[in-house]
C-alpha cells in the first residue's frame, strides 16, 4: 500500500475493485457566524426599541371602572393613542378603582399635578352630544396634559370631562355671583349672541357668601373682555312689563333651556384696558342690571323709625330729593328693655358716588354727612309706590328741623330722623278708604240694578202709551178740541158783557161771599164759645 489513501489501494480484507467516491468541492463560509451576530443585533435592537418605547406607567383612580378594560382601553390625547390601560383593580378600601396605564415615551414631561384624566363615554346633554365614537370603540381615557407643575404618576380621574382643556386657546375669567341661576358647567357664554365660551366651573366661596364662577372665553374673543366689561346671566327669559310696553330679552333658545352668560362692554366710548386675569367680575342678574352704572363704594348708616314701617323691605330705595342714592339693607325690630320702647332700626346702604361733589372736599365722607346733618339733613319714611304701598327712605334737608347729630359708636353711624309728613295724610286717607269700604256697595249696586230694570219697563210702557196716543188719542183729541172750540165760541156769546148770565153769576157769587163771611163769624164765635153748640147763644 504505497499509494496514498486517497488513491486506489484497498485495505486488507476488503475486496478489490470498490471504487472511491468522486470528490466534490465545496466552498466554505467561515463568515457563517455573521448570521447569529446579525440575529442577535436585530433581536437586541428590537428589544432595546421595545424597552425604550416603554413610556411612563401611571395609575389613575376612578370612581367606577365602567367601560375601562385592561389591555383594551386606550389613553388618548387629541384622539391619538398615547397609551393603554394595562390593569384595573379595586382600591384596597373598595372606594374606587385604580387603572394602571402604560403610556408612550415622551409624555413624561406632561405628567404633572395639573394634568387631568377622564373617561370619555357617550354623553348627551342639552347643549351637545359628545363621545359618540366611543359607542363603537368603547370608552377611552382622555388626557389633558399640562407641562407646568410638580411631576407625579398617580392621578385622580375626573368624573365628568372638563369643559376646557389646556390645549384650547383662550382665557379663563372669574365671576362672582350671589346664586348660580339656571346654568351649569358647560353652559354657553355669549358675546352679542355669539357663543364664544363656556362655563368651566363654579364653586362656593369659603365664606359661603358668593359663588365663584370660572368662565372660559375662546381666543380671539377673550380679548373682548376688558376691565369695564359686564357679565350678566342670560338664562331663560327676561320679561319686563312697564310703561314702555313689554320687553322680552333672551340670548338664544339654547340659553333659554340650559342657561348661559353674556357679556358686553356697555360704554362704546370707553374701550377700557385688557382685563387682568385675576380680576373678579360681578355677574349681574340680567342685562338691565348690568347696564346700570356700577358704584363700588357703599357706606352703611343706621336710621331709627318709631312707627310702622310696613312696606319697607330690604332693597327698598333710599332717595335724596327723589334721586335714588342707595337702598335699604335690613329692617329689624328692637326692644329697649329699660323702658320697653320698641323701635325699628333700619340699615341703609348709600352709594356716595351717585352724589357728584363739585369741588374737592377735605372733610371726608363722614365729615360731609355730619355737615349735611347739621344743615338739616334728616331721614324720613316716604311713600315710594302708591300702588304697592311700598315705602322708601327719603333724605332731604329740612332747615326747620330740630338740631340733631350723627350718632357714632354703634355698628353704623346713625342718621337722625323726622316723622313722615305723609303719616297724617295716610291716616285720613285710610279712614276714608275704610268708610268707602263699609259702604254696602254691593247692595246699592243690586238696588240700582233693580231700579234700572223697573225704569226700563216703565220706559217701554211709556213708549207703548206714546204710540197709542199718537195713533188713537190724537185724532180724538183733535175732534174734542174742535167741539171745545165750538163750545167756547157759544160760551163767548153767553159770557159777553151784557149777557144775562155773567150778571147773575156775579150776583150769585156776591151771595156766596156773604154766606162765607157769616160762616166765618159763626166759626169765630164757636171757637170762643164752643158750649154755644149745646146751649145756644
Amino acid at each position, binding site marked *: 500500500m504505497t499509494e496514498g*489513501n*486517497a488513491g486506489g489501494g484497498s485495505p486488507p480484507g476488503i475486496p478489490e475493485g*470498490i471504487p*472511491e467516491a468522486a470528490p466534490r468541492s465545496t466552498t466554505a463560509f467561515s463568515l457563517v457566524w455573521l448570521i447569529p451576530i446579525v440575529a442577535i443585533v*436585530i*433581536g437586541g435592537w428590537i428589544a432595546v426599541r421595545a424597552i425604550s418605547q416603554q413610556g411612563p406607567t401611571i395609575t389613575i383612580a376612578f370612581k367606577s371602572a365602567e367601560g375601562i378594560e385592561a389591555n383594551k382601553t*386606550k389613553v388618548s390625547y387629541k384622539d391619538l393613542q398615547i397609551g393603554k390601560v394595562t390593569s384595573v383593580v379595586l382600591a384596597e378600601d373598595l372606594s374606587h378603582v385604580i387603572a394602571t396605564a402604560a403610556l408612550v415615551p415622551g409624555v413624561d414631561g406632561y405628567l404633572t399635578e395639573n394634568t387631568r384624566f377622564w373617561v370619555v363615554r357617550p354623553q348627551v346633554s342639552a347643549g351637545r352630544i359628545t363621545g359618540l365614537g366611543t359607542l363603537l370603540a368603547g370608552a377611552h381615557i382622555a388626557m389633558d396634559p399640562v407641562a407646568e407643575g410638580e411631576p407625579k404618576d398617580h392621578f385622580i380621574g375626573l368624573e365628568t370631562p372638563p369643559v376646557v382643556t389646556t390645549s384650547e386657546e383662550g382665557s379663563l375669567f372669574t365671576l362672582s355671583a350671589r346664586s348660580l341661576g339656571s346654568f351649569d358647567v358647560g353652559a354657553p357664554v355669549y358675546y352679542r349672541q355669539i357663543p364664544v365660551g363656556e362655563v368651566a366651573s363654579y364653586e362656593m366661596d369659603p365664606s359661603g357668601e358668593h359663588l365663584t364662577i370660572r368662565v372660559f372665553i375662546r381666543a380671539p374673543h377673550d380679548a373682548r373682555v376688558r376691565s369695564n366689561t359686564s357679565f350678566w346671566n342670560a338664562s331663560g327669559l327676561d320679561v319686563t312689563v312697564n310703561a314702555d310696553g313689554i320687553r322680552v330679552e333672551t340670548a338664544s333658545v339654547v340659553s333659554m333651556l340650559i342657561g348661559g352668560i353674556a357679556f358686553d362692554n356697555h360704554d362704546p366710548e370707553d374701550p377700557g384696558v385688557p382685563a387682568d386675569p385675576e380680576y373678579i367680575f360681578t355677574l349681574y342678574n340680567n342685562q338691565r342690571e348690568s347696564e346700570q352704572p356700577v358704584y363700588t363704594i357703599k357706606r352703611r348708616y343706621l336710621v331709627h323709625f318709631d312707627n310702622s314701617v310696613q312696606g319697607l323691605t330690604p332693597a327698598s330705595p333710599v332717595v335724596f330729593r327723589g334721586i335714588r342714592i342707595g337702598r335699604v339693607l335690613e329692617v329689624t325690630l328692637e326692644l329697649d328693655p329699660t323702658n320697653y320702647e320698641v323701635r325699628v332700626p333700619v340699615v341703609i346702604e348709600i352709594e356716595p358716588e351717585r352724589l357728584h361733589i363739585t369741588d374737592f372736599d377735605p372733610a371726608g365722607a363722614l365729615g360731609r354727612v355730619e355737615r349735611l346733618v347739621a344743615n338739616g339733613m334728616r331721614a324720613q319714611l316716604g311713600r315710594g309706590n302708591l300702588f304697592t304701598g311700598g315705602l322708601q327712605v327719603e333724605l332731604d334737608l329740612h332747615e326747620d328741623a330740630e338740631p340733631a347729630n350723627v350718632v357714632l359708636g354703634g355698628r353704623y353711624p346713625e342718621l337722625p330722623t323726622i316723622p313722615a309728613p305723609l303719616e297724617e295724610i295716610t291716616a285720613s286717607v285710610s279712614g276714608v278708604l275704610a268708610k268707602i269700604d263699609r259702604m254696602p256697595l254691593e247692595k246699592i249696586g243690586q238696588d240700582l240694578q233693580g231700579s234700572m230694570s223697573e225704569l226700563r219697563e216703565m220706559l217701554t210702557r211709556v213708549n207703548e202709551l206714546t204710540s197709542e196716543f199718537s195713533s188713537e188719542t190724537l185724532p180724538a183729541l183733535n175732534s174734542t178740541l174742535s167741539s171745545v172750540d165750538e163750545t167756547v165760541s157759544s160760551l163767548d156769546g153767553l159770557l159777553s158783557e151784557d149777557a144775562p148770565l155773567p150778571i147773575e153769576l156775579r150776583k150769585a157769587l156776591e151771595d156766596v161771599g156773604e154766606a162765607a163771611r157769616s160762616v166765618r163769624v159763626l166759626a169765630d164765635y164757636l171757637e170762643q164759645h164752643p158750649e154755644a153748640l149745646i146751649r145756644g147763644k
Partner: protein
Amino acid sequence: MSEEFVACHDCDLVHRIPVGQEGRSGRCIRCGGVLFNEKRNSVERTLALAVAGAVLFVVANVFPFLSFDMQGRVTETTLLSGVRELWNQDMGSISFLVLITAVVAPGMQLLLLLYILVPAHLGRAPHQLSLCLRLLRRFEAWSMMEVFLIGIFVALVKLGDLADIVPGPAIFSFAILILVLAGAAATFDRRGLWRLVPVSA
C-alpha cells in the same frame, strides 16, 4: 485510520469514503445520489444558525406578533397569547396543535441542536447523543412553523378589509426563524457527529 463505507440511499451500492475528505460531498457513482454531504465546519455553521435561531425564537415569542386595529379597538397578540385565546375559546385541540407545532417543536429543535453542537464544537461527544438525535428527528417532523405562518397570512388577507393589521417584530422573526432552521437542518451533519463517538462505546 479506519476506512469508512457508505451505502447509497437510493441503490444500495456500497462505497468507500475517501479519508480526509471532510468538507466534501460524495455521490453514488451508479445512480448519482448524494451519499454524504460533509460540509466543512458543519458543526460550526449549524451551531451559528442554531444560536441565531434561538435569538429569533425568543424574539418571536416575546414580542407582539400582530396588532389588530378594529374601529379604534386595538388588540395585540403574541404567539402565546394567541394560543391562550384559542384555549379560552374552547378550541383546545387546535390550541394544543399550534402550541406543539409552532412553539414547542421548534423550541425543542433548537435546544437539542444547541445541546448537541456546543460540546461537539468543543470536540466532545454530548451525552445521550443517539437519544438526542432521535428526539431531534421527532421534533423536526412536528415543527410546522411554515404552515402556521401560511395560516396567518391567509387570515391577514381575509381580515385586511375588516381591520387594520399591523405586523409586529415577532412575525418577521418567525419567518426568518423558519429559514434559519431550514438552514440549520441542511448544514447539520449527523454522520460527522458519530465520529466523535468511539464505535466501541
